[in-house]
């Protein structure tokens, strides 16, 4: 084997050093960024900020969770079904190619554009006022392409002999999908759902013109048909992320900065929970479904 020249060796060492430096820089940046937000959130914390009033972020937190759950109830069935179609039934013709282009286009649409579309269709055309359901639908549009792609990839990752075994036992294609392929692919699909939920938590641009920038709810009113009930999904509802934006652009509260700091910290915490959670859930389900023992996890 020919030895590299001295110059090449020096260049190699220098490049390695620089790459280590850049990798370290990113970790420091992330640590500083998240550390700063959490620190500011803790400094800003006052017990009354957790209240379910205009002075707190309780309402927004409730709205955020409600909106994300609602959007997943809409987007997960559609996204997963479309993913199954793409992986299992779609042919190789122009329709499939066109569907793929559609999914890519949807996935790369700026969320503000989706928000405007939602505003036009869910509010202007139905004559409704800002409402939580419209926001959930807009977030669903953002989530459907990623859920479809995740499901397709997950199904295609299932080994071919699973399929052959099932066909060999006389199962139809659909029975194979529901009985064998989906359960095997479930860990990755669930990871995809959790990631979609995480995205929904932080979404704001698509919600400004759909679910609105304020809420007027009464937490003692649990009649779902009343407009001030927290359960009513036809009421205007601002989420945590939208609140940060609203406080910045039209904030009249004296404690706008503190509320934004606290909201940011809560959102960052949610990101951590969702990111770690999706890894954990994915790994655990993988172990259970593939029957591998604990030690086999990489």
């Amino acid at each position, binding site marked *: 084997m020919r030895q590299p020249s001295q110059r090449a060796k020096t260049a190699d060492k220098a490049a390695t050093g620089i790459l280590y430096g850049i990798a370290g820089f990113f970790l420091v940046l992330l640590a500083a960024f998240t550390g700063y*937000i959490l620190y500011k959130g803790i400094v800003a914390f006052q017990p009354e900020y957790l209240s379910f009033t205009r002075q707190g972020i309780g309402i927004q937190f409730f709205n955020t969770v409600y909106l994300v759950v609602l959007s997943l109830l809409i987007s997960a069935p559609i996204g997963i079904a479309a993913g199954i179609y793409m992986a299992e039934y779609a042919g190789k013709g122009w329709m499939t190619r066109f569907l793929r*282009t559609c999914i890519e286009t949807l996935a790369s649409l700026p969320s503000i554009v989706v928000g405007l579309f939602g505003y036009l269709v869910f509010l202007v055309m139905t004559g409704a006022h800002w409402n939580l359901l419209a926001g959930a639908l807009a977030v669903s549009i953002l989530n459907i392409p990623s859920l479809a792609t995740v499901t397709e990839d997950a199904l295609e990752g299932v080994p071919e002999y699973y399929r052959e075994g099932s066909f060999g036992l006389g199962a139809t294609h659909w029975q194979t999908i529901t009985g064998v392929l989906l359960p095997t692919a479930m860990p990755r699909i669930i990871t995809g759902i959790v990631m979609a939920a995480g995205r929904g938590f932080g979404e704001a641009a698509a919600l400004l*013109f759909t679910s609105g920038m304020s809420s007027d709810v009464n937490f003692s009113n649990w009649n779902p048909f009343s407009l001030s009930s927290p359960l009513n999904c036809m009421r205007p509802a601002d989420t945590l992320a939208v609140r940060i934006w609203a406080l910045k652009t039209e904030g009249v509260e004296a404690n706008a900065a503190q509320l934004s700091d606290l909201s940011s910290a809560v959102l960052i915490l949610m990101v951590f929970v969702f990111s770690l959670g999706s890894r954990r859930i994915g790994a655990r389900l993988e172990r259970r479904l593939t029957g591998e023992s604990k030690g086999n996890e990489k």
Partner: protein
Amino acid sequence: MNNKSMFQKEYLGRTIVTIAGLFIIVLTISIGAFLFYRGTATFTANHHSVAEFLFSPLWEPAQQGSGGKVGAAIFIFGSILISLFALVLATPFSIAAAIFMTEISPRLGKRVLQPAVEIFVGIPSVVYGWVGLTVLVPFIAKVFDLPYGYSVLAGSIVLAVMIFPTITSVSVDAIRSVPIEYKEASYGLGSTRWQLIHHIVVPAALPGILTGVVLGLARAFGEALAVAMVIGKMQAFPENLLLSPTTNLTAEITADMGNTTLGSEVNNALWSMALLLLLISFCFILIIRIIGKMGANEK
């Protein structure tokens, strides 16, 4: 189980998932159609030329009726400038991080950097904007001795941080898919690791890396709130390409869409901007397709 009909065993499920696929097509087409319908009103109902919209810097649309000026050049220029600066800032770092994660230390890459990148992706854009507003903007004002720190630079830095994970994760996938034989052959010829990366790995992964860069650019172009918070929303071309405040397409839409009545000239012009954003994101998809084809042809 045998008394289930073939309909239940196969056709029902198959029909449902096919409808879901068709639904996505219908959804995409209707988004395009509605934006096209709204976005072209500037040119049909208000009789402005496309050239005026794209190239004129005069933005004085009428709040009621017609007769104003709808030049969106300032916003378009702002969007292009900020996205390109963000790309220039983010690309070298992203590719370096991707190389580190795949070639230098895959173990650290998988255990530490991969989760870090995922967390960067997950941080909501308003949080980036809020930190940009409270930390970066005052910092820029201090360092460059400006009255306010709202600037192209602030917007670009915020965007760069936001698009870095996109470029990195796509590049990582591209580099991982470089065939191992390439590397073995290169080491066999006595090359150092850096020579391998520089002459073999990066060129071989280039189509994938470029895809990541275009995806990053697309994300930068469409980002609304984080940029709007730090750009200053000044309706003028930036005097200084880096340090002056300006505005862009998304910031203008978010700022004014809520205050205008549907069908007025100013409202139509804002919809035209939204249509422009849609068309540009579609162009990015086409570019990615072309890059993908070129990459496939080389192999």
